[in-house]
């Protein structure tokens, strides 16, 4: 029995391999990732391991990061766009502890950005890797619950039913009402779940210079979008894809081009809108930008 402290903080543990996973497992995952990169948007089954964080909390992303991270990498972890949410802190500390690597909150300094539910506002550059945590990798799951059938639908590119969903939205609401986890067609071939990012972030996936890796731990799937790959959000010719827009700018930094979170100020309905991307907002404020509620 190996002694080990259950606390998450502290020195890299001598009881575990670098970045927790053993080297054979990392190799297996990297082979899966190579395959995923070779067939953009196609889901690759992989031998997902039981991790010390719960399923649904980022085990897929963590396994990818653990498999590609080296001692010289600099890791940024965000959840809901922010570096300071509990899950982001937990995952960052997991790697600081098991791999002893440098972490950062700055997108431009990170070599790997692991994310849940957002793509950073600041454009990524070539050489960076964006790792997505994915709960439900199968975009067809809500139409067809059987895996054997959805795999066949992908293999034969039988994607008509996907548009049936969009049709229903337009018939009922006059427009496509899907707001996040908005399905995309990758490289003109595979329909892919972009993970539950808001559709606001979908255009950032298109022709991105960075490598995008997607991991679903519980569902045991990997997929990828290589740099400079076409990623098209599904739509109709007469109802083109559109992203959400706010009538206000960020109350702290004044940004008018970022995804805004609503903060409830009091119980009398007082609300303010602030950047969901905490780093973007802080950097703009440091550069002297001011929103209407800024000090």
């Amino acid at each position, binding site marked *: 029995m190996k002694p080990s402290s259950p606390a998450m903080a502290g020195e890299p543990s001598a009881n575990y391999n670098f970045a927790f996973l053993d080297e054979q497992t990392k190799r297996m995952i990297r082979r899966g990732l190579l395959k995923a990169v070779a067939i953009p948007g196609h889901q690759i089954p992989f031998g997902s391991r039981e991790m010390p964080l719960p399923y649904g909390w980022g085990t897929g992303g963590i396994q990818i990061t653990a498999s590609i991270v080296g001692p010289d990498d600099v890791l940024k972890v965000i959840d809901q766009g922010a570096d300071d949410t509990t899950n982001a802190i937990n995952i960052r500390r997991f790697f600081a502890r098991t791999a002893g690597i440098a972490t950062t909150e700055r997108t431009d300094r990170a070599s790997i950005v692991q994310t849940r539910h957002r793509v950073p506002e600041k454009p990524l550059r070539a050489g960076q890797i964006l790792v997505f945590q994915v709960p439900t990798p199968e975009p067809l799951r809500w139409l067809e619950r059987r895996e054997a059938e959805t795999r066949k639908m992908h293999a034969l590119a*039988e994607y008509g*039913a996907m548009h049936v969903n969009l*049709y229903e939205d337009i*018939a009922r609401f006059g427009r496509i009402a899907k707001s996040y986890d908005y399905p995309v067609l990758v490289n003109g071939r595979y329909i892919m779940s972009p993970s539950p990012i808001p559709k606001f972030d979908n255009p950032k996936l298109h022709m991105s210079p960075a490598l995008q890796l997607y991991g679903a731990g519980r569902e045991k799937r990997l997929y990828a979008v290589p740099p400079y790959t076409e990623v098209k959000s599904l739509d109709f*010719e007469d109802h083109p894809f559109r992203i959400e827009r706010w009538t206000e700018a960020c109350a702290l930094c004044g940004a008018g081009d970022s995804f805004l979170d609503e903060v409830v100020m009091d119980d009398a309905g007082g609300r303010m809108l602030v950047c969901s991307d905490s780093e973007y907002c802080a950097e703009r404020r440091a550069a002297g930008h001011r929103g209407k509620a800024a000090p």
Partner: protein
Amino acid sequence: MSRVPLLCAEGVAKSFGARVACRDVGFELHAGEILGVVGESGSGKTTLLRCLAGQLTPDAGRVAYADRSGALRDVFAMSEAERRRLARTEWGFVHQNPRDGLRMGISAGANVGERLMAVGWRHYGAIRASALAWLANVEIAADRIDDLPAGFSGGMQQRLQIARNLVSEPRLVYMDEPTGGLDVSVQARLLDLLRRLVQRLQLASVVVTHDLGVVRMLCDRLMVMQAGEVVEEGLTDQVLDDPQHAYTQLLVSSILPA
């Protein structure tokens, strides 16, 4: 005249365990022709239909279909991808229970439009216009287009299922007891509608039924099945007016005089 048939079956056989569902069934079906398959329930009609439609692999025999290019091709030698493509473009399948052929959780319009989207239609307005036209063809009011089929009567659901199948302008439609489970007056209206549609669209069809009334209204030719085997076949009027086989005579005599 030696036209290539649209559908050609030879020696089709299928068993489930010890039970023989059908044995040595063969026929040719030409474009625009309606073939009725009659027999009591359990006589193997539905199994035969599913074998013809590529949904069930027969134990023996061959099913060949001539696609738009005109060459006869073995349905079970095709890739599954091709079979599935045919099933949603050149073929239709009308189930006895409309719930098996419709998506109950989506609107009538989407039910009709699905095949169009499956073959690449990406213009909402065009899909909707086509759905509206087809709802009109099957006598469903335009203002029901956004309603769920669950709220439709049995006859309406069946008409919706027919529209959903015909929207892609198939050449061959398989029908499994299309009027089964409907009231007599509703049946008559549906049959009348079906007859007009198959004539107008020059559809070929294989219609499985136990109802000789359906056969008389709809079918050019007729096959009578008993215990998995074809016991008699011929032109509809000929078989019904002058049945040769004892089983056919029994079937014909068991319908009430009109």
